[in-house]
């Protein structure tokens, strides 16, 4: 069974891995590159635990083929913090206690970052609809939504 050699950019660094032709990007990241921060909750695009940003677009990495990452740029949860500084979303999730078991957290943070990249001042309703593709079974979303709104405010005040 021959494997494909994929050259891509992950979290700003060149990366390469081998994968089967039918392997998902989720598997490529987790098994090919050892980036296990991206989680699998369903494998069918319904839970958002596997959310990554590919060329500025939020995708469910379980629905993208690993081979599609060839020559593209992928951002995963491991690339959200910069150096030793947490991203404001990460900090807000901690402060607002927006995680309980934490399995959904990487997906929510990546999805929320994609939202704030395009809409720095979302309403509660916009946050709720944007994150409707991410399931959390523990929190009831209350503290997650608050954390995202909080981080958005934080980021806006940092840029003025």
């Amino acid at each position: 069974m021959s494997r494909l050699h994929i050259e891509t950019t992950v979290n700003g660094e060149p990366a390469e891995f081998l994968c089967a032709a039918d392997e998902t990007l989720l598997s490529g990241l987790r098994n090919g590159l050892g980036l296990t921060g991206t989680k699998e909750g369903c494998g069918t695009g319904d839970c958002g635990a596997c959310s990554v940003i590919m060329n500025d677009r939020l995708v469910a990495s379980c629905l993208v083929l690993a081979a599609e990452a060839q020559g593209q740029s992928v951002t995963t949860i491991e690339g959200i913090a910069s150096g030793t500084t947490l991203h404001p979303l990460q900090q807000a999730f901690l402060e607002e206690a927006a995680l309980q078991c934490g399995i959904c957290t990487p997906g929510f943070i990546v999805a929320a970052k994609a939202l704030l990249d395009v809409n720095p001042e979302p309403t509660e309703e916009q946050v709720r609809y944007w994150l409707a593709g991410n399931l959390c079974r523990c929190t009831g979303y209350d503290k997650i939504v608050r954390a995202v709104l909080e981080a958005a405010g934080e980021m806006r005040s940092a840029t003025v």
Partner: protein
Amino acid sequence: MSAPTFTAVGTRPIRHDGVDKVTGRANYGADLSLPGMLYGVVVRSPHTHARIVSIDTSAAAKVPGVKGIVTGKDVPLIDAKLGMGEGALDLKDLSDNALARSKALYHGHAVAAIAATSLAAAHEAAALVRVEYEILEPVLTVDRAMESGAPILHDTMTTQARPPIEQSGPTNVAGRMELRRGDIEQGFRDADVIVEHVFRTPTSHQGYIEPHACVARVNEDGRISIWTSTQGPFLVRDATAMMLGLDAANVKVTPSEIGGGFGGKIPVYLEPLAVLLARMTQRPVKMVMTRDEVFRATGPTSATKIRMKMGAKRDGTIVAASASLYYEAGAYRGSPSGAGAMCAFAPYRIPNFFIEAYDVVVNKPKVAAYRAPGSPMAALATESLIDEIATQLGLDKVEIRLKNAVQEGDLAPYGPPYGRIGFREVLEQVRNSDHWKSAVKPGVGRGLACGFWFNAGMSSSATVTLGADGSAAVVTGNPDIGGTRAAQALMVAEELGVPVERVRPSVADTDTAGYTDLTAGSRTCYATGMAVVEASRDVREQLRGRAAKIWGVPIEETRWEHGRVEPVNPSADRQPLTVAEIAAKLSKTGGPIIGRAAVNPPMAGPAFAAHICDLEVDRETGCSRVVRYTAVQDVGKAVHPSYVEGQMQGGASQGIGWALNEEYVYNASGVMENAGFLDYRMPVASDLPMIDTILVEVPTPGHPYGVRGVGEVPIVPPLAAVANAMADATGIRFTELPLSPPRVLARLLEEAPAAVGAGA
């Protein structure tokens, strides 16, 4: 006793495991890989009820990369029970469920497992396993299961009954119990109003986002390591060892971070298979379920049928109640019908009642615990009937509950008198809440419902180590599902006066931690917390000893005060010593200090909750939406209030999902048709409003801080709170869940076709 004052407990520090969890660094069940690891997959029955005639694995074994295949005949036949938390586990059933021997009892029942060098090879081989089945008629409802002439799932099953009943041959009724008080006939004769309904709830799943996953390794000397996502590492160790006839002393279980459980990660499914395959192949074996497998072969909770009748005086005093509870157990005995029976009337003082509960096997996956197992369905019935009585009598929904609410000294329906409980305080907070006092918007209905859960005590151990730098480490054996590390660190900080950031909490493996029961029964913060407090106090005692040594006085002349050791008789050379000061001298005063404690509280303080739900109903589509929601709960003492609120919010939203949408949809042959998150519709962020919380703190006398378990009771009221809101909005009493748009619309059309047509 004056209320204790706290310095650390009740604050909201950032959880210690938080950074790992927001950066993707934390390792969950599927995140571990070992060198030379094989991938295991399970072959599952495509039939709902079938005798396994033969299994031929020869073609599968020839697939390149396949290293091992196991079937039911590789599992020793054992007959033992393992006591644990909310019931005893029957090891024979557990092992039969993990790998069927003679019969497949539900669609998705494991019949073989394969390990191969790649997942693709394992799947290819799985498709080549030839199983010859003799297909049997499936039994899919309690009604069918209890009919005479119904197919029998287990030829040897008899009814475990309290009181005993006459047995007549094999049955699908695995259990029956009853509770009674007073004179039920007279009670109903005395009633001015009597209401009665049959309620039904569907099979629903815990829905944790992380599928079951584990890795097992077997060394040449027989030592076995299991890494797994579980609520009970010691249970995995003991159950796996007993099922496979191994010495548990050779089994070490390391819990990974756990991506949700809600009771569903108590049973063992994959672990024994992975161990069998690892032993056969002498390679580590990793097994991860797909979401489809999680739905078809783990969890869920019982579908139920409950007939309940309640009678009250004109002033709202409940004088009689009776109920028959029928809970599906799935393929093996063990539904939470008994717990349902004990909870059903627990919040109210009812002088005359009779309640019977049946545990019935059907051809569905064996049910697992699900957050306050058994109680939410019973509360749906009880709280719906109280709501209806109040409506009929024109009484306020809070007042009728207050009138009948239990308080300290009242007998619980299952026997003992209640100790200090906070149900009335909870109801008073409902009455005083903004939400309850606010006007109900047009097109919206408001529902109120209450709930009860026992909470568990059980065994827990903890050690607290003091560092020479004055920091502390606390080790326990409970996987942290929702912030319990932070809670434990807060307790150490409280007891020792060490800043909470300088306390390092960890969850250890079964070789390292002292025996600790499950993370379940809302017990971790309560019972394990108690062990942590006692272990910290043990450290305090040792600190007094060191101070005595430094001062050259007997220990009696020292005391713990103001977060430090003070001399009973101060003098110039005997100034109070802080923990940090004593810690700096550890090596000169006798070496390290380790505090330890093991506890086994037989009981815990019960939890009561009341939820208020505002539901907006679209009369043209039957679609409804929760627009405002408030959860009120007696939490005893909130150690980390944010995570207590989180439990309440999470439980409420799970319950809302159960009430409005979630259900296993079965076809006529018992195959689940919606085994994925797209069609098994759990609430998403856009379905819900903020969930407001009101924490009532009525301390539990048995706990040093008054902590009550908080994790489970929040799922008890929502089913009824939503149904009562629906009744308020539509004037229709729905008795069957979920209140999905088609069901609601059908009833709306039936009751008032013209009004609906007119868009009223």
